[in-house]
């Protein structure tokens, strides 16, 4: 177990080196650079050259990369070229927003997706099954930004039920010791703020959770269909177990294994989907942070942000692999 974890953590090293090289080369292949972006259309070639010299961007790429790795080794991620704030500080401020949103979206996908898939399988070829298929198709095929705009138009602009931008109404304020606004509201015992933050999460969570919801529903359905024809299910039914007990202890539990894998894979999707969702909802998380950084050719933020995300995806996948052991004792034994 420990060896497994250590081995997986060691794998992080080549992954991070690979990711950092790719990002490093990719952003430098984009036309324009931070100097030109900062100086705007007024830039004289001399001013751009002087700024590039100051930023060390006139040196060969491998020298720049060497300096970057040297900096990383001391856990320094540099400063944002636009806000001039340390990348790590900005990340700490913005990451909780994305986590909060990803959790809300994941929660929405799970509580709707698993029952939808489960009942679709139970009522195979019935109305519920077809409903589930339609929802999944809509979920997978609607682009996030389009769904987000429609949701906002209907529920914020037309009906006025929910807010359209941000994490919290600007007329409410609580201290932000954690930057997890739900948690901050609870810590401040400000229930108005808690409700307000929750309302701000609903539409982005639905927009971001739609694709995972569809995938989870389909996988659950397929998995439940498989499992419910297994011998042990028939045995359980034959020995007279209550149908509910069969469903939960035998069918769903055994069907969870592929579902857990899919949930793990969705974390990457949630983080990449956050880029679009956060931009449309002006949600100040790492998604909108990276979009702004790419527009401004803000190299330190792009490099740092992508590295952070890579680390998180690797960790989550590790957690998912570890969770197999709890779901299926047979995996626990194998090394």
């Amino acid at each position, binding site marked *: 177990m420990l060896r497994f974890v250590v081995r997986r953590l060691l794998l992080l090293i080549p992954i991070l080196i690979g990711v950092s090289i790719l990002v490093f080369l990719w952003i430098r292949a984009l036309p324009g650079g931070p100097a030109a972006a900062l100086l705007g259309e007024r830039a004289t070639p001399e001013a751009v050259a002087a700024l590039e010299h100051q930023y060390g961007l006139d040196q060969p790429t491998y020298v720049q990369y060497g300096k970057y790795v040297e900096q990383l080794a001391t856990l320094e991620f540099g400063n944002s070229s636009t806000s001039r704030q340390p990348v790590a500080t900005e990340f700490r401020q913005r990451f909780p927003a994305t986590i909060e949103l990803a959790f809300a979206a994941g929660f929405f996908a799970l509580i709707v997706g698993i029952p939808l898939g489960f009942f679709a399988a139970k009522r195979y070829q019935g109305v519920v099954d077809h409903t589930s298929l339609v929802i999944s198709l809509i979920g997978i095929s609607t682009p996030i930004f389009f769904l987000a705009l429609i949701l906002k138009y209907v529920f914020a602009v037309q*009906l006025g039920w929910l807010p359209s931008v941000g994490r919290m109404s600007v007329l409410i304020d609580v201290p932000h010791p954690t930057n997890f606004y739900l948690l901050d509201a609870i810590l401040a015992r400000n229930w108005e703020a808690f409700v307000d933050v929750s309302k701000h999460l609903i539409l982005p969570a639905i927009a971001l959770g739609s694709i995972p919801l569809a995938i989870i529903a389909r996988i659950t359905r397929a998995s439940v269909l498989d499992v419910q024809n297994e011998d042990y299910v028939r045995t359980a039914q034959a020995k007279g177990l209550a149908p509910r007990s069969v469903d939960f202890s035998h069918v769903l539990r055994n069907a969870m294994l592929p579902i857990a894998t899919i949930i793990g894979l969705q974390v990457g999707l949630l983080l990449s989907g956050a880029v679009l969702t956060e931009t449309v909802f002006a949600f100040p998380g790492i998604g909108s942070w990276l979009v702004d950084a790419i527009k401004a050719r803000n190299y330190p933020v792009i490099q740092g942000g992508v590295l952070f995300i890579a680390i998180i995806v690797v960790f989550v996948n590790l957690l998912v692999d570890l969770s197999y052991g709890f779901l299926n004792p047979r995996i626990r034994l194998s090394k």
Partner: protein
Amino acid sequence: MRGKLLKFALPLVAFLALIAAGCGGGDNESTGGTAPSETTGGGGAGGTLVFAGAADPVVLDGALVSDGESLRVITQLFETLVALKPGTTEPEPGLAESWSANDDGTVWTFKIRQGVKFHDGTDLDAAAVCFNFDRWYNFKGSFQNPSATYYWQVVFGGFSTFNPDSGAPEESLYASCEASDASTAVITLTKPSATFIPALSQQAFSIASPKALQEFGADEGSVDADGIFHPTGTFGTEHPVGTGPFQFVSWTRGDRLVVERFDDYWGEKASLDQVIFRPIADNAARLQALQTGEIQGYDLVEPQDIPTIQENGDLQVIDRPPFNVAYVGFNMSMPPLDDPKVRQALAYGLDRQGVVDSFYGGRAEVAKEFMPSSVEGYADDVPEYTYDPEKSKQLLQEAGLTPPVKIDFWYPTDVSRPYMPDPKRNFEALAASLEKAGFAITPHSAPWSPDYLGKSDEGQLQVYLLGWTGDYGDADNFIGTFFQSPQKQWGTDKNDEMKPVQDLLAQAEAEPKQAKRIELYQEANRQIMTILPGVPYAHSSPALAFTANVKGYAPSPTTNESFATVTLG
């Protein structure tokens, strides 16, 4: 068959019901809260206005920024020696009640307004003014970088110490500032200049509290391994202390920046209790937030959204006077453009009205000269060149050429500018009109930055699309920037036809009497449009949007817009 149809129709209905049910919770919750617009709009006088920009400010220190989001907030918190009449580019007294120059325009005496308090309670006096000027002049290290002190360098040039690596020029217009008494500041320049008076109205020359600048380490910071200057002081992020009608309250990056009315303000006090600035990067999101009442105003309205806003009785569009110019530039050193008749033929052959009507959505006017009419020095009586293809052909023949005359016409790609939203379509329409006027156009394009700008700076383009947005309301910032010194883009490095204009512009820059300066600039505009180094074709108007209850917002061509005059009806 019907059964099958039902099987698919039912699920769809169910799905929609599900979505509605999923949000039903939100509905119940929202009955407890109040819509933001109700809370903020209520009460007549006072109230809170929520305004959305596209991004967070960088830092609230006018000397160190040039981005519009920072300048917008800085305008509320700080003031400058010279102010602008609201909605114009005409200088009027600000923190200086009056100013005068010696005969040769090198020594300027400013009478500093008395009884003005900074937000930290300290008094404004001439020493505080000079403290600020000396601070700017003595910037070192990466403060000298044009990305930080762009406006100082445009107006005053260099710094007390010259660093060849910084990109800043060596020579400075600024010599010294002395406080001869509490209300008199004397600024000495190294050469005669009058353009610096209107330039002082820029937020870059905001007068800050010397006490706060020192206490909160405005000049402290370090340069990291990437060469990026990283301020460690808190002046620009937590303690921006000026004399403006609003004072700073708090700033949560990515979320909100709050300012409140300053009750000890020397002039007419603001009506609003608070202004909250929110960053909303996405255009559609800004519009929707205005429609829901989460914000009461936003900047950078997309032209295609304007009809939607105008049709909605609860919303309004406010136009900023144009402050830019799009032009077709000529390299006068490249034959046959060295012949004035050929340039005139080009001018008559460009259907500028057609382009403005087709591609600017009614948000632009045809340009007559290289600066907008809101800037003093604009001349109404310049030679005009209305589209006349026959006249073009005739002029070409007079020049001894046989139509069609070959022209290399360039346009930029990967760019959209307020003055040139769609360069390719502008190009296509202008090229088509030239083809009818006896020219054979060879189209060329290049990516905007660095290729296109580089080629035009190097004088490699014969005929090309380009433009400019002003920094401050002075003719020098438009025609001075283009024509005062010889430039390769116009071919004036080799062709001396523009010499008389260069002399006029130099004379105008040094002329301390404003009325005389204006006459000189008007004359320069007449001569420019006679010599024709290019043909200006459009001035476009950017738009802001507000909810209908917002009154008293004075749009300014230079975006020096104060919320102090705004009320919520």
